[in-house]
């Protein structure tokens, strides 16, 4: 067994620094180590054993063990193993050795632990505020258990301003965001520009941090959280829904019925189809190629309709509960889905054939937003960004979940490391998704949709789950708890890692390529609050205000 072999290698090298280990089942390994040895062990795992860094988690465990906890998660993709290296820290003045100089990808995660839990990563070179808003008082940590979910901290100062770094000499600062037509969510980049070239940037984001993790561990219950989890993301919501349910199931050793696993797989692939078509359209829109934007969105629309037919909603499927799914796929829907897939394939094939030879789009995307193998390794980049650099990782194959271990599909990789390769990867993955759904419809067996859970879930157990979202790996970490809710739930969306690669991807590039480089990792689009209509007969142009649009939607009268 791989987990045992890794554990014995660690024990050989570090001896008593490994306090205890837990091997709850295939593909999972939890190692509890001494705080002093944490950094050396992580370095060994990341560099010598060549694991991929996933995320670091901080947790306030004081009410239960009187200590704080820090865990660094790694993945051995070739050996289908997810590992968590955890350590417990004393309750007063918790400090842990920073691993960000040996694992650069841990930069954000450690800053987040510092912000939200108040554990200081000693030796972190850039310990600036990351998650908390500008006016939040220092020394107040909202994810600690003694901080109520609805508490407003004393000393909140609306007027306090964020201190940005000084730009390098000879550079001008160009602000990008928080509101920009190619960003759908607010994020602020301060770009350092020399002439037309971007020389660096500073990022200030987390402006829509909603505290869902805090709600989950203080207000919601196990079966409430899936419905909230899918609201983490507007495009890959079902991924979070499934990943959370699987993390809890893995912690509590629950196996959902086979039919539920197939339905999960089908819904995840339906989501991938719509997301890939959305993103290809969007990327084309960013570079000004609106023809393909319109066509790929037209081809996408019937997928939304079938999702609505299966789940009752276009996008928020509300699919999972712990131990199963809520919606069935009836024989009629099955037939309709098959027909839809045939049509989709017939429509998407000529589009890919036409676009892959189109010189215009290649001129805007080739050699732009370079993320090579070294960057992928150091920053922990995932999904199409990693696969466009020839890094062959895909959680569906590497850490099989739901019904993926019973299906046959290919992982698409390209070697260009640029935006063009990402377009190709995502365009081709559409065909793989079609293939997967067809196989599911063939192989799906009859049976119950949900497992009846009679006993309360065990307390204090750890669960991990990685799900391949359209944008990359989405990773959920759960510690089960009392009162029918988890003690700690940590979500790492793929963009969390991919965004950290952006400074390197846009460095020494034209300013005009910034938007597509950014767009290439994060498929989102900006909602506008006004629109323009032109009367074709009279040629009169009218600009609609937000109020007029609201009135139109509510009364349907102008």
């Amino acid at each position: 067994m791989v987990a045992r072999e890794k554990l014995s290698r660690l024990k050989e090298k570090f001896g008593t620094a490994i306090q205890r280990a837990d091997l709850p089942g295939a593909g999972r390994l939890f190692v509890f180590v001494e705080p002093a040895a944490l950094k050396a062990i992580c370095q060994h795992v990341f560099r010598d054993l060549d694991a991929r860094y996933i995320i670091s988690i901080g947790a306030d465990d004081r009410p239960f063990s009187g200590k704080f906890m820090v865990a660094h998660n790694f993945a051995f993709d070739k050996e289908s193993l997810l590992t968590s290296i955890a350590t417990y820290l004393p309750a007063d003045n918790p400090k842990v050795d920073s691993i960000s100089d040996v694992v650069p990808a841990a930069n954000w995660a450690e800053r987040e632990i510092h912000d939200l839990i108040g554990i200081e990563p000693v030796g972190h070179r850039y310990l600036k505020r990351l998650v908390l808003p500008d006016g939040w008082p220092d020394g107040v940590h909202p994810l600690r258990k003694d901080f109520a979910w609805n508490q407003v901290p004393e000393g909140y100062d609306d007027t306090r301003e964020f201190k940005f770094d000084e730009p390098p000499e000879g550079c001008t600062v160009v602000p990008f965001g928080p509101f920009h037509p190619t960003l759908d969510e607010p994020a602020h980049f301060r770009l350092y520009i020399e002439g037309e070239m971007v020389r660096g940037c500073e990022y200030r984001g987390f402006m829509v941090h909603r505290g869902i993790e805090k709600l989950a561990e203080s207000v919601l219950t196990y079966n409430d959280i899936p419905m909230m989890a899918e609201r983490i993301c507007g495009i890959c919501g079902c991924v979070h829904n499934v990943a959370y349910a699987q993390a809890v199931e893995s912690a509590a050793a629950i196996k959902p019925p086979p039919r539920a696993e197939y339905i999960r797989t089908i819904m995840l692939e339906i989501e991938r189809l719509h997301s890939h078509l959305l993103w290809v359209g969007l990327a084309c829109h960013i570079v000004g190629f609106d023809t393909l934007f319109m066509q790929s969105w037209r081809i996408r629309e019937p997928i939304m309709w079938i999702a609505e037919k299966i789940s009752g909603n276009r996008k928020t499927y509300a699919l999972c509960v712990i131990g199963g799914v809520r919606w069935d796929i009836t024989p009629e829907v099955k037939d309709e889905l098959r027909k839809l897939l045939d049509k989709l394939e017939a429509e998407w094939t000529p589009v890919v054939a036409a676009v892959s030879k189109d010189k215009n789009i290649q001129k805007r995307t080739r050699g732009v937003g370079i993320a090579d193998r070294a960057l992928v390794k150091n920053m922990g980049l995932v999904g199409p960004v990693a696969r466009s650099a020839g890094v062959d990782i895909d959680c569906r194959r590497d850490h099989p979940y739901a019904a993926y271990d019973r299906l046959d599909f290919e992982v698409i990789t390209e070697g260009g490391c640029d935006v063009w390769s990402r377009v190709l990867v995502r365009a081709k993955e559409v065909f793989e998704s079609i293939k997967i759904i067809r196989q599911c419809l063939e192989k799906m067996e009859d049976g119950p949709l949900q497992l009846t859970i009679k006993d309360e879930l065990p307390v204090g157990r750890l669960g991990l789950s990685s799900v391949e979202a359209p944008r990359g790996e989405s990773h959920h970490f759960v510690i089960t708890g009392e009162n029918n809710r988890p003690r700690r739930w940590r979500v790492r969306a793929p963009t969390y890692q991919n965004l950290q690669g952006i400074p390197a991807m846009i460095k020494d590039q034209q300013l005009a390529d910034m938007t597509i480089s950014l767009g290439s990792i994060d498929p989102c689009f900006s909602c506008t609050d006004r629109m323009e209509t032109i009367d074709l007969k009279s040629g009169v142009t009218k600009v609609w205000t937000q109020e007029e649009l609201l009135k139109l939607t509510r009364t349907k009268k102008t």
Partner: protein
Amino acid sequence: MSVLSKLKEAVICLKAGRVTLPYPAQAQPVPEKFRGRPIFDAAKCTGCGGCANNCPAREILLFDLCQEIRILQYLGRRCAYCGRCADVCPEKAITMSHEFETGTNSIGDIQQRVELFMSTCQRCGRCFKEPSTLEQLKLKGYRVDDVAHERWVFRSKSYLETEPVVDDIKIEMD
């Protein structure tokens, strides 16, 4: 050759034709299973409070005015239309309607208030047989949500006080 791919793209566009729908002037019919605004049927409701216990958005409030009268209020503001309330309702008193254009200038248009007559139970006064262990919440007995300020109170009681006043924010830590 780029000209050729431009021609191919033109063919794709011409073949597609016009697909825009006349929304919002005319809406497409929604599928049978569509989850729109939940509708509460006062005639069927027994007041068990299962929906309120399992609403992820905490949009359903319960207030026990006295032993016999329970008020159930649906706030309709943050409701995610997930349909969990309809799932757990043992009497099928909640239906997910086909209404989705719920934009309004007055929130009262979508709110619902059900006043229920509760007969006295010998055990706790309010029983709810949960479909699975995970559906339970440790809030049994009498509930005193803050209906006036439309917010949940994370506490329940085994007896009714004469004046249930809850304004201390710390209490919500449970």
